[in-house]
């Protein structure tokens, strides 16, 4: 039997704040996504299925994939917008603004990025991937699960990798922004 509108609304009233806070909070900010729009889209897609006679096998898995496909669509749209914006910037705005940014700042930033790229690629793969995932914001437990490692091993490899990146940057003369 499908869910009634009241049943759906009352169930979602409990879960939408959690979706907003835990699932999309950080991701939305970092990717520039419109969290409210995503929640509305998730709600619409779930209502279409849960209010119908359609039998959903593995409901938890279905719900998770619904959220993820909405997020992926949103990320794609956002990427396309960013690319358009970059094209627009390169075509129209950049030549005019080229002289407004101090050349030494641009060179300094580029040097930092190049040095970081070099330091990271010099790491052995066993430490490089955990270190990069750590710097991307995953915790050692999540890294361990994703890479099939114990928490302790993931923690050890990731932090050793980060220490080595830091040491390589120091040798390359890249210091803290504060220094």
């Amino acid at each position: 039997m499908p869910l009634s509108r009241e049943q759906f609304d009352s169930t979602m009233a409990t879960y939408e704040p959690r979706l907003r806070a835990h699932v999309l909070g950080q991701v939305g900010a970092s990717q520039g996504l419109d969290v409210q729009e995503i929640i509305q889209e998730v709600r619409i897609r779930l209502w279409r299925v849960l209010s119908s006679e359609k039998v959903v096998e593995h409901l938890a898995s279905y719900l998770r994939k619904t959220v993820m496909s909405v997020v992926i669509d949103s990320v794609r749209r956002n990427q396309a917008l960013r690319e358009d914006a970059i094209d627009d910037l390169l075509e129209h705005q950049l030549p005019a603004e080229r002289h407004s940014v101090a050349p030494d700042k641009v060179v300094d930033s580029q040097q930092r990025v190049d040095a970081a790229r070099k330091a990271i690629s010099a790491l052995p793969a066993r430490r490089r991937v955990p270190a990069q995932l750590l710097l991307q914001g995953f915790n050692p437990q999540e890294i361990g699960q994703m890479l099939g490692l114990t928490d302790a091993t993931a923690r050890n490899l990731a932090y050793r990798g980060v220490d080595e990146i830091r040491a390589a940057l120091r040798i390359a003369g890249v210091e803290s922004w504060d220094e």
Partner: protein
Amino acid sequence: MNEAELCALQRAISIKTGGVSDCPDMDTLIAFADGELGAAPRELTALHVAQCDPCVAIVRVAISARQWSQDLAVDIEAVPGIAVPDNVHYLRTAATLTGVEAPRPDRESSRTSDVMRRKKPRMWWPAAIAATLASVFVANLALRQPPMEDGLRGVDPIATSPMSGTNLSVAPEEFSWPCAAAPGAASVELLGADALPRWKGSVRDCAVSLPIEVRQDLAAGEYLWRVKNAAGEPVLGPMVFRISP
């Protein structure tokens, strides 16, 4: 250089634009987030995710949405009128707590197994003799073993109190377990069959007492309890018990 600056540099060298069409598909990213990929695809996916901003976001959503969707599924299936057999509901509740996908009843395969069960083995006695010899051998081995410490037994839900699957006439006064079965145990969580928390208590000496007012409030029905560490991660359980006065 501090960690925030390193993170900023990592993000600066990540793929920011145009990469999504080359990214692994959603099912691969979900399997990666759950640690279910084989070694070779895991390595490839990890290399990609480590330097792809959009995929980092998608994997992060996959991790966060896992518990959310399991809890929501349990609640939807608990809505009156949504027909879900009791045993399936319990299995799904347990699955929510353990993070393991619950098995689904498969009518076709159960019919097949019924047919298979009706077939009696014609040559039953060699199997019976072999089974007897095997059990004598195992018993003999067990008698020769020195007594094991709790730490060597591993996680054994049967060694808990109340034991998993127990029928009780009244609510238990205490939850306890072998200390080695739940390293870092810090709290015990008691949940109803609907997976909603009913009570939480701090652990002392691998046991925790259930306050009398909570015991009095527990009506007849099925309950689950699990042990968590200080970070709130389950380290033992869930164990199930039923109160049927």
